C-alpha cells in the first residue's frame, strides 16, 4: 500500500486529494498511519507500531488496518498494493 503522492497532508490531519477535490479529516491514529505509509513503511511495521503503542493484539490491528486500507483505496488516497 502506497499513499497517493499528490495527496496534500496537513500537520493537523487534513487531507486533500487534488485529483478528485475531496477532503478528509484524519484522526491522530489515521494520520500517523498515513504518515508512516508516506514514509514507505510496510503494513507489518505499521501493525507492530500500533500494537505496541496502543497495547492491542496484532490480529485485531491487522483486521482494522485491512479495513482502513480499503477506505484509502475507496477514496483513491492510495495508489497500489505492495
Amino acid at each position, binding site marked *: 500500500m502506497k499513499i497517493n503522492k*499528490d495527496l*496534500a497532508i496537513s500537520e493537523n490531519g487534513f487531507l*486533500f486529494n*487534488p*485529483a*478528485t*477535490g*475531496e477532503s478528509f479529516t484524519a484522526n491522530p491514529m489515521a494520520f500517523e498511519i498515513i504518515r508512516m505509509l508516506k514514509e514507505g513503511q510496510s503494513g507489518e511495521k505499521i501493525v507492530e507500531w500500533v500494537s505496541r503503542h496502543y497495547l492491542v493484539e496484532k490480529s485485531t490491528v491487522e483486521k482494522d488496518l485491512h479495513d482502513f486500507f480499503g477506505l484509502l483505496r475507496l477514496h*483513491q488516497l492510495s495508489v497500489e498494493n505492495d
Partner: protein
Amino acid sequence: MIFSDCSGCTNSVLKMTKPLITIAVTGLNAIDSPGPGVAVIRGLREAASFDVRIIGLAYESLEPGIYMHHLVDRTYHIPYPAAGIDALKERLEYIIGKEKPDVLIPNFDAELYSFMKLEKHLNTLGVHLFLPTFEQFEERHKVNLPEFGKKHGIDVPPGFVVSDASEIFTISKELEFPFMVKGKWYDAFVAYNFEQARTYFNKISAKWGLPVVLQQYIHGTEYNVIGLGDGAGNTIAAVPMRKQYITDKGKAWAGISVDDKKLMALTRRFVESTKWRGAFELELMRTNQGKYYLMEINPRIPAWVYLAVGVGQNIPEALTLLALGKEVLPFEKYDVGKLFIRYAFDMIVDRSEFETISSAGEL
C-alpha cells in the same frame, strides 16, 4: 500595451497605460441561480492587458448587476429573445450608437442564437463577439447530445427527445428509473417513476417549450470544466471544478479547483474534435468507478467563472482579446485546491434608480 509619457508625474519615468475597451455584457441577474454577467465583469475589471468600461444589458429592472456601479458603468434594457431578432437588433443599434462598445459578451443560452444571428451585422458596427458557430451550437444541444457523444468519442448517458407526453411510457421502458427530465434550455428534475416523469414533462414543457429530454440518471459526483477554445482546435483555457455545495436548483454554491488528467484530456479532446470557438462549460458526472459521463455542454461562460480568474486563468480577458482578433497563447497552469464560495449580499438602492431603469430603460 501602449506606453505614454507620464505628464503628471514628478519624475521622468515612463508610465505604462492600458487601452480602454468598452464591453457590453448580459447576464446581470446575480440571483440564487445566477447569470454569469457579474462574475464576467469582475474578471474583465481585473484584466492585465486592458482597462474596461462596462455596459450592462439587462432584461429586468431588478437584475442586481444594474445597481453595482463599481462594476457596471451604464445599463440598458434589452428585449427578451421571444420579442424576436429585429427587436433586439433595433435596440442594440440604439445602444451601440450611444456607447460604441468594442466587444459584446452574451451570457445566456437562450439569447445566444439571436446574438449569433446578429454577429456579422454587429461586426459592421464595430462590435466584436467570440461565439460558437451555428453547427457547434446545434450539435452540442441537449436534444442532440447522444449523437454528439458518438461523433466525438465522449461517453454520454443514454437519452431520448420527447415532444409528446404519450411517448414517455414507451421510453421509460428503455431507461432505468430514476432518470432525468430536462428542459431544452433550463431546469432538470429526477423522476423515480412514470407519474413523476409525466408531471415533470408537463411542468418543463409549459415553462420552456418542447422538446423535453429524458436522460439516464448517473450516480456519482458532479464535476464541471470551464474552458475557452480558439476555433482552431486549441484549448486556450480550462479549469476543472468539483461541486462542493449544491443548491436546490442544482447550482454550485461552492466548488474547488481540481487536477484530474482524465478530465483535462477529455476537455482537450472536446475542443480539438469540435474546433470549439468561444467559452464553454462541460457538466460531467464521475461514477465511483472513475468513469466520466458528459451530461451537458453549455456554450457560454458559466456563473462560477471567477474561480478560473482566481486560479490564474482570466477567461473573460482572453475571450475579449480573441474577439478583438489578438493572438492569445494557451494558459498552461492554474492553482489546484482553491475554493469559490458564493454568498448573497443585500444592496440598498435608491428608488429613483429603479424608477429610471424601469421607465427610461437605461441607467
